[in-house]
């Protein structure tokens, strides 16, 4: 029995290659050539014309059944991405609002000499002084980076930066008598837990469940 392809089988393969456009582009790019190769193998092993016809019919039915499923999965993934993006923006927007509200409250407290707000103001001063802005930038980078290794690297940096910042604070505190070391330390610890808490909230509570 010859293993070469018959003319009709060759035609069907050409048609199937065109029909593969029914699948999403990414899927086609990844598996299209493998699917054609698979069909080629099936055709080679089919010894009779009815056997080949059965393969064609089965393949066409399979295509009609699975192509919409692949599109549906792609749409679901895109939907999830958009939902995650919305959640990210919501979390960051909320964070900015909290900071703005705190600043407004602080300016009101200072102008009216409200003691509780002034105490809060000292904490906020320390927070701003010790790198809240730097942490915010890294935090935003962590949230918007989709490339996982970079995200992990940035997140690690956010955690690791805690150690040199503390060391630097202690060194400056020892050399500069006007430097308020306890205030700065409290500020940095607060800043760290604030961003860590926000990250925890984002990843455990706010993030929508991914569909399979």
């Amino acid at each position, binding site marked *: 029995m010859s293993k070469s392809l018959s003319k009709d089988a060759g035609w069907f393969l050409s048609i199937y290659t065109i029909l593969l456009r029914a*699948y999403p582009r990414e*899927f086609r790019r*990844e*598996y299209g*050539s*493998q*699917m054609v*190769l*698979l*069909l080629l*193998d*099936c055709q080679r092993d089919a010894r009779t014309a009815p056997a080949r016809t059965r393969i064609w019919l*089965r*393949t066409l*039915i*399979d*295509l009609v*059944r*699975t*192509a919409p*499923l*692949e599109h549906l999965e792609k749409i679901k993934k895109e939907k999830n991405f958009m939902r995650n993006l919305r959640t990210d923006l919501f979390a960051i927007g909320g964070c900015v609002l909290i900071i703005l509200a705190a600043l407004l409250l602080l300016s009101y407290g200072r102008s009216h000499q409200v003691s509780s707000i002034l105490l809060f103001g000292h904490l906020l001063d320390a927070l701003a002084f010790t790198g809240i802005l730097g942490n915010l930038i890294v935090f935003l980078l962590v949230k918007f980076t989709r490339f996982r290794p970079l995200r992990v690297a940035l997140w690690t940096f956010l955690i690791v930066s805690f150690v040199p910042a503390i060391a630097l604070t202690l060194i400056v505190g020892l050399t500069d008598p006007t430097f308020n070391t306890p205030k700065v330390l409290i500020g940095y610890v607060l800043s760290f837990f604030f961003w860590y808490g926000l990250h925890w909230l984002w990843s455990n509570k706010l993030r929508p469940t991914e569909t*399979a």
Partner: protein
Amino acid sequence: MKAPTRRPEEFLPLTPAMFHILLALADKERHGYHIMREVDERTSGNVKLGPGTLYGSIKRMMADGLIEELEERPDPELDDERRRYYRLTDFGFRVATAEAQRLEQMVRSARAKKLLPRTR
């Protein structure tokens, strides 16, 4: 690849196509057509995986870390270089085992309800 802290039960029940593919890869690595043939032979022709079903399932199982693609073909001399070979991961093996146990439990229940004859 997802974190290795996942439990196999999270993936159950598997689709019939996925379970058949895992079974086909349980004893050795195979390429797409090999998987298709193995399933066809093992089920006496009752289950025939089409290209879309096969590669759609492969795509999902790779994303879930149940199977992986081999870097090198087992038999590069004799084989078509375009073929991609797949094998079961340790996690995939655990998922396949969990699914087999689940099915065994269901068969046991069916026996208890006299839907199936009792084995001697």
